[in-house]
């Protein structure tokens, strides 16, 4: 037998013996494949230093980028439960435990209150790493409480969407969160408290078809996937290839569903500007305080 012939098929090395570069040092860009150090990436607002690709980041990364230093996390004591005892390839409660362990998060949404350029703002941000950023009862309740908090203190709300849509394991309960979040946002609109919807990669399904499209101002990161139906579903339905750039932020801006697209390096300034214009009296004027 030739020495070059494989005796056993497949990879024999156990996962635990796999040799890998240590985590947290390097990032290889998904798009241009060029490497940069995590430090460089972070300094560049988590964008590829070569091609400006916006790497997916989590809720706390956005809080760090946007808030003036300190912020307070709100409603962190709300946990999902496997009310329907839903089991697909694994039970939902196992999925939840694994997601909590893997991400160190409670659920796919974290809410925090802080200041952006000295003006108060409540941000509700999603984590795609937690079951695809899916919307279940917890997300609905956090948005509901965030709205009450914002109405009470008359502080603007910003939701950062990054989600595959409704959480199937909560079946109709997740579907009803579309209605729940919408009725709450109708109270914001009626009270004249601003709500900004910031869409990031990806925002699809029930999240897009409810609060993500309902901002007083809707804006997105460049090249984010945004849509109602996922591209695979559409492709299977119409049995045709999808046009280039379909369902990107740029596509939505062009079709009139976004107000603007913002590069992550300009995000804080832009939100600061919105807060300045929508809530001019939220900072004591310089002259008075001086």
């Amino acid at each position, binding site marked *: 037998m030739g020495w070059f012939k494989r005796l056993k098929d497949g990879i024999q090395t156990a996962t635990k013996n796999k040799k890998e570069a240590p985590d947290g040092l390097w990032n290889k860009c998904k798009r241009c494949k060029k490497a940069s150090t995590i430090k460089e990436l972070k300094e560049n607002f988590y964008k590829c230093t070569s091609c400006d690709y916006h790497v997916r980041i989590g809720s706390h990364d956005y*809080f*760090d980028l946007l808030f003036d*230093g*300190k*912020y*307070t*996390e709100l409603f*962190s*004591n*709300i*946990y*999902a*439960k496997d009310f*329907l005892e*839903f*089991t697909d*390839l694994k039970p939902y409660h196992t999925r939840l435990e694994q997601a909590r362990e893997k991400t160190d998060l409670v659920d796919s949404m974290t809410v925090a209150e802080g200041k952006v350029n000295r003006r108060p703002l409540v941000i509700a941000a999603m984590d795609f790493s937690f079951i695809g950023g899916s919307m279940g*009862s*917890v997300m*609905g*309740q956090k948005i509901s409480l965030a709205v009450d908090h914002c109405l009470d203190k008359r502080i603007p709300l910003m939701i950062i969407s990054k989600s595959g849509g*409704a959480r*199937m394991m909560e*079946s*109709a*309960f*997740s*579907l*009803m*969160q*579309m*209605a*729940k979040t*919408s*009725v*709450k*946002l109708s109270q914001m609109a*009626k009270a004249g408290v601003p709500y900004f919807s910031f869409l990031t990669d990806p925002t699809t399904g*029930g999240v*897009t*078809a*409810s*609060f993500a*499209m*309902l901002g007083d101002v809707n804006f997105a990161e460049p090249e984010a996937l945004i*849509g*109602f*139906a996922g591209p695979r*579903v*559409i492709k299977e*339905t*119409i049995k*045709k290839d*999808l*046009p280039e750039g*379909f*369902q990107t932020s740029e596509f939505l801006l062009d*079709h*009139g*569903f976004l107000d603007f697209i913002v590069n992550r390096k300009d995000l804080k300034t832009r939100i600061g500007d919105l807060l300045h214009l929508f809530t001019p009296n939220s900072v004591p004027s310089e002259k008075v305080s001086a």
Partner: protein
Amino acid sequence: MVFLEFEKPLESLYEKLEKIKQVGEDGDIDVSQMVSELEDKIKQTRKEIYSSLTGWQKVQLSRHPERPYCLYYIENMCKKFVELHGDRYFNDDKAIVGGIGNIDGQTVVIMGHQKGVNTKMRQYRNFGMANPEGYRKALRLMKLAERFNYPVVCLIDTPGAYPGIEAEERGQAEAIARNLIEMAQLKVPILCYVIGEGASGGAIGIGLGDKIFMMENTWYSVISPESCSSILWRSWDYKEKAAEALKLTPEHMHGFGLIDGILKEPLGGAHTAPMDMVKSLKRHIKKELAPLVEMSVEDRINARIDKYNSIGEYDVRSVAVNENAVAK
């Protein structure tokens, strides 16, 4: 008659019945006793089959090709009905129909998803899958109802909002979202009925109201069992399992408090006695509208908001709140 897979025992009984009737007609033999015995047996078998339907069987019944669709109910419930077309922006969606009608002296604005009755019409109606224009037409009609202070009735029967290129270009998500926030604050009563399939955003896009009901052989879910199977089990073969796991039947939905009640159907499904179903829907609408019409606008909207705001199952744990987490 079209028999579903799980109705096979009925089909053979019906065949037998036909044969015996034929014999009776051909010869001079008295078959009346045999006929009545068989008819009893059919009734009994039907009862047995229908007393314990699975989720997937309800899904199949909701899609029964002879099942009455939206316009059938509207035309038979309303003494007068004028269909109104178009969203005034782009075109007239054929998968959502609606207009102004009169149910026993009460003018209502009534609308719903419409499926086609034959192959040609099914295509024309896009299988009950609406484009954004459908949702925008529905909203236009609701605003019209608000202007003239008429209650709104929505009949839901859709396998989902249409997933197509043009639908995305014209903002399928925005159209559904807009309806949700507008229906939340609509000043007139809104009654919603799932009369067939209640799939996901396509259903809830005209499904936010003061009271939500489901007919007995229908389903309401965040996703169709087929798509759920393909996503979570990564195969199309688990649709029965998915239908059970999703707990999408009217009985489950009512048990969870997500709907306000169930409308009984004639034994064997709405299609076996469609006019009976029309009458029972009409009675139900009249009964449910009466108290809603009496309420003040403010009370009604507040109750609607509370109704949806209370939906959700989660634990509130006592954990140390992450006060003043310091950034950077």
